[in-house]
Every structure is written in C-alpha cells, then in structure tokens.
C-alpha cells in the first residue's frame, strides 16, 4: 500500500519579509545552564494541524492550514537534558520521580509528563529573565521543518474505518531503524534549522490541546470539543497523550505505535 507522507511547505522566501527584531536577551542572573537557542526568521508554513477533523460526521483527512510566524521563533537547539532537568529537581522545582540523578547528563531527560515539562518551564522562567514555555503544535512543526511528520494519516476511503487504522498501523511501524534507548544530545544530527535530534527516539510535548474540528459544507471550521487533559506530542509521528503520563505503553485498545520516550524542549514565550 502506498502511503503518501504528510506534506509540509515552508515558504522560505517569506522569511526575509519581516526581519526578526527581538532585543538580545540579557544573560540570566543565576547559574542555570543557559540552553542554546535557535532563532527562526519570520515565515509561514502550510501543514496539517493537530486534531481530528470530520465533515458531516465522517472522519476526513486533515485539511492543510497556513500559519504565519510574523515574529519568528526562538526554540531550544536541543531537548532538555538530564543535567538540566536535574538542576530543577535539586531546586525543588520539578518532581523527583522523573530523575533519581543525572545518570546520563548529556542525554535528553525522558519519562517526562506534560505536567513535568510544564513544571520545568515555570521553574526555568523564574530563573531566566524571560518566559519560556512549551511550543504549540504549529511552532513545533515550523521548527521541525522537513522532519515534521504529522500523524501519518493516509489518504484512504473514509467510509471504511478499518482501512484508516490499518494504513496508520503500517505507517507507524514501518520505520524501526532506531531502538528506544535515548542517546546523548546531537546523536541524531541537526535539521535544516539547526535543531538537534528532532526525529529521534524521544518525542516532544507541545502545549496544544486535543481538539475535534467539524467542517461545514461552506468550508467553515468549528472546534466541537477541546480536551486539555490530552496534549499533542510530536516526533517521528504525531500522537496525543494524557498530560500526566510519563511512559506510553503499547497495548489495550490503543493499537498505534506509542512514542518510545517522552521528552521536551522549550520556546521563548512572550
């Protein structure tokens, strides 16, 4: 079966239209490790956003959406490491259940729930002079560039629900070239924006909530439900995970491939 890869278009030409003009950040006054940030110039992107889309009650393939990033984006070059997260644990800003110590300080911290990631963002923002937060799904996709994968929902006949599940299953399990053991930062290389380890074996939390979106015949989109107890997770494929889960397991009625590990990186927020 042919499964078309979700498409992502980044209009690189637009990037020059608006120059990013945020003031240079002063160094945080604390001894917190300052992560390397990547600055993405302003631009726009057309991509399949997160959420489940229906038309007249039938599931449909996600319609593409164009998002503008007029002020660009500043995002951590690498996923938050064990050494970085450990400082937050030691400082009582993050739950100790995540880490018992920085066993592999240079490797990304994994086994992190959305709440754990959020705790780190709040703690870190308190240490730094500016606010840091988890990226939205769109911001993550913008930074991931060509390594963005979406759900891998295939283009199939929506009147037969099983075809969707089968095609998705095939697509999620197709790539088993990487094992599940986290590796030191940088092991999976950089993408065209300079972000390290984007499509690695560590998936990343985003701040976006799970939404259902109904499309009317007029083309108008309406969010029919929003569940912020479930957040969008991005990586080798997009998935949706309950916010307090640290380790997604295969099994039960969820037959898709679970993320191998849950980690995160932050963006600079305004």
């Amino acid at each position, binding site marked *: 079966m042919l499964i078309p890869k979700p498409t992502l278009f980044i209009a690189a030409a637009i990037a020059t239209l608006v120059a990013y003009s945020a003031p240079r950040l002063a160094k945080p006054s604390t001894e917190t490790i300052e992560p390397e940030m990547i600055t993405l110039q302003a631009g726009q992107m057309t991509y399949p956003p997160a959420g489940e889309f229906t038309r007249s*009650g039938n599931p449909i393939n996600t319609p593409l959406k164009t998002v503008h990033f007029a002020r660009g984006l500043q995002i951590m070059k690498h996923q938050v490491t064990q050494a970085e997260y450990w400082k937050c644990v030691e400082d009582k800003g993050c739950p100790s259940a995540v880490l018992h110590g920085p066993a592999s300080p240079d490797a990304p911290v994994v086994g992190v729930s959305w709440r754990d990631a959020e705790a780190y963002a709040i703690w870190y923002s308190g240490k730094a002079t500016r606010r840091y937060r988890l990226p939205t799904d769109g911001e993550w996709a913008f930074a991931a560039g060509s390594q963005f994968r979406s759900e891998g929902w295939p283009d199939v006949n929506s009147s*037969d629900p*099983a075809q969707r599940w089968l095609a998705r299953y095939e697509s999620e*399990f197709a790539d088993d070239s990487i*094992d*599940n053991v986290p590796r030191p930062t940088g092991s999976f290389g950089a993408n065209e924006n300079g972000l390290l380890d984007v499509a690695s074996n560590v998936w990343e939390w985003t701040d976006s909530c799970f939404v259902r979106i109904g499309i009317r015949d007029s083309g108008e989109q309406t969010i029919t439900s929003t569940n912020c107890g479930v957040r969008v997770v991005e990586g080798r494929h997009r998935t949706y995970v309950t916010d307090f889960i640290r380790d997604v397991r295969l099994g*039960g009625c969820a037959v898709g491939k679970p993320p191998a590990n849950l980690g995160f990186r932050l963006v600079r927020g305004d």
Partner: protein
Amino acid sequence: MTSPMIAFALKARTIVITRGTVIIGAAFATLVAPLPTQANELALKREQVELVAPPFVHPHEQATEEKPKIVAFRMDIQEKEIVIDDQGTKLQAMTFNGSIPGPMVVVHEGDYVELTLVNPTTNTLPHNIDFHAATGGLGGGALTLINPGEQVVLRWKATRPGVFVYHCAPGGLMTPWHVVSGMSGAVMVLPRDGLKDRDGRPLHYDRIYYIGENDFYVPRDEKGKFKSYESLAEAYADTAKVMQTLTPTHVVFNGRVGALTGKAALTANVGETVLIVHSQANRDSRPHLIGGHGDYVWETGKFSNRPETDLETWLIRGGSAGAALYTFRQPGIYVYLTHNLIEAVQLGATAHFKVEGKWDDDLMKQVGPPGPIAATSK
C-alpha cells in the same frame, strides 16, 4: 465425562473411552507387545519434519487418510542471551531450537513422535524434555537428560488428541528455572479425521498461529534497573529469588515484549479461519481477542472434548495449552492479549492481528460521531 460425549466420540472416531482413557483399538496390539528399541522396527512409514520457529507452524495435514507413521523431528537446545523488551533488558535464556517458545510439533493421533534432542558443546547445562502428551517416564524427561556434547533420541506414541505443553524438567529447582528461562513449547496431536464441532461436523483452519506465553523474572539492581549477567550460572541465584516472589517482571508472547506487534503482527483476511494455539508452561493466562471471539475453543486443549462456542475470554491453565478457532468478520487491527490487562499492557502480553478486508456496516457502524453532548428534548 458425560454420556453424550462418549456417544459423540464413538461415532466420530471409533475409539473406546473408559474413564478418560483413550485407546485406539487397532493399535492395541503394539501397546502390549514389548516396545522395539529402533524406530524403524515398527515397520511404519517414517517422515522427517523440519520444525519452524513460532508463531508459525510446520506444514501439516489437518485430517489424514494415511496410516499412522513415525514423524521424526530434531531440536537443538540453545543457551543464549536475548533481549526481552524495547528497553534492552537482557535475559540469559535457554531455548528449544533457538526460539521462545520452542517450535510446535504437529502429528496425528496414533502417530509416533521421534525426537532427536541435541545439547551442543557450546551449552553449559544438562537439559531434557518432558512431553505432557507422552505417557510414562516423566513424559520422556527420565529418558532424555543429556549433558552438553550429547544427544538422545526419544520415541513416544501420540495417543491423546489435543494441544499439550512440552518443557525442560531437569529436576529440583532446575525445572522451574529452565522453564522460566524459555524452555517450553507445544505439541498438537490432531484427530486423524481432523477437528470437529460439538455435533461432529468437521472444522478447518486457513491459518494456524502458535503463541507461547512466558513469564520472566529479571533481577533488579539497587536503583531498580534490570540487571544483566554474563552467564546462566551467574544469573541463577538472583533469578531464583525473584522467581520466589511469584511476581514476574515480564509476561510476554513469543519471547519478548512486542514480538507479535508492528511488522511482526499476525495477519489474516476477512473470511479466513485462524486456529490460535496458546501455551503457558508455568502460570495461568486469559487470552482475549479484542473485537473478536473464540468461535470454537478447546479451553483445556484436548480435542476429545467438545469445543465451547462464542467465548469472550478463555483460561489457559499454567502447564497446559489451549486452542481457539476464529473466523475474522471485520477488517482492522485486533489486539490479542491476556485479559489481566496489567500484565498485557505493563508486562508485555500483547499481540496484534492485522486483518485485511471490507468493513461490514451491519456488524458495526459509528452512527453518531464524537461531538458535543446533544441537548435533551423536554
């Protein structure tokens, strides 16, 4: 045993049933005569069969017109380190023929199983084999104990139709340790005229899968991480302590977490009938097919008993094998698991069936999709 059962058995197979003992009339003479020491002295046709690693099963007839024969198999015991989950946890394993579970052996009632069991010099421990389907000699265990560098040939007559466990049983604490290190498999003794429903009508399968379930007991270090060992001998003492807790660290199908999911998911098509043989040599299990059923289930695995029908979940008693026949009616991904869901999801006992075909709206349809709760009319 109930009288209708006896009547059915007499009619279907011309065998005599007395207090659960099945004896084939025609073969009776050979039972009372002294057993020959060489297989070829039986003057029966001899067939050498190559075993296949589970979940697959070597080619076989479901019903046969042939006279009973000697079916010869060879198994090489392999001690080796294996990885049992996606976190890279290692187990010093012991295996029949290199796979966990060991390969499934299929013969017909009245056939003779002739096994050449080989313990290569590369191994470190004595091993043997106890066939639950065999009669006498501790299931063959008493006659097959071999050291590294030895082989043994055992022949036993398949007198009882059904699916049965075989396992290593070298004695004492060695027995449970060898079993929970991977040394178990299954034998299927088919009735000569094949499987039947409760009314004696023939049942067939288009595919057969053998799912062997194992409980593993991997020791942890002081930080809670799974330990690995250089050899079986080094692993033994710590492993025996974990075994005694009766709390497995892994419960898996086919030797590791995820062995039967993803690219290795079991496959079938809508309309096909699949026979799933499930064995557990040490511990109870409750197979369940999410979204499917057991059309015909021999829960205790013995084909002289009438199959139960339309089951949701069935019990595989520790130390036994069972068989379930199911015709897929709807495409999609099916989860086959043990319905102790903690063991299925957290310890690993989950397999997937990938079923191709056309969706049947009559059997299931999402009439109202997920959406806001509708206002109730007053």
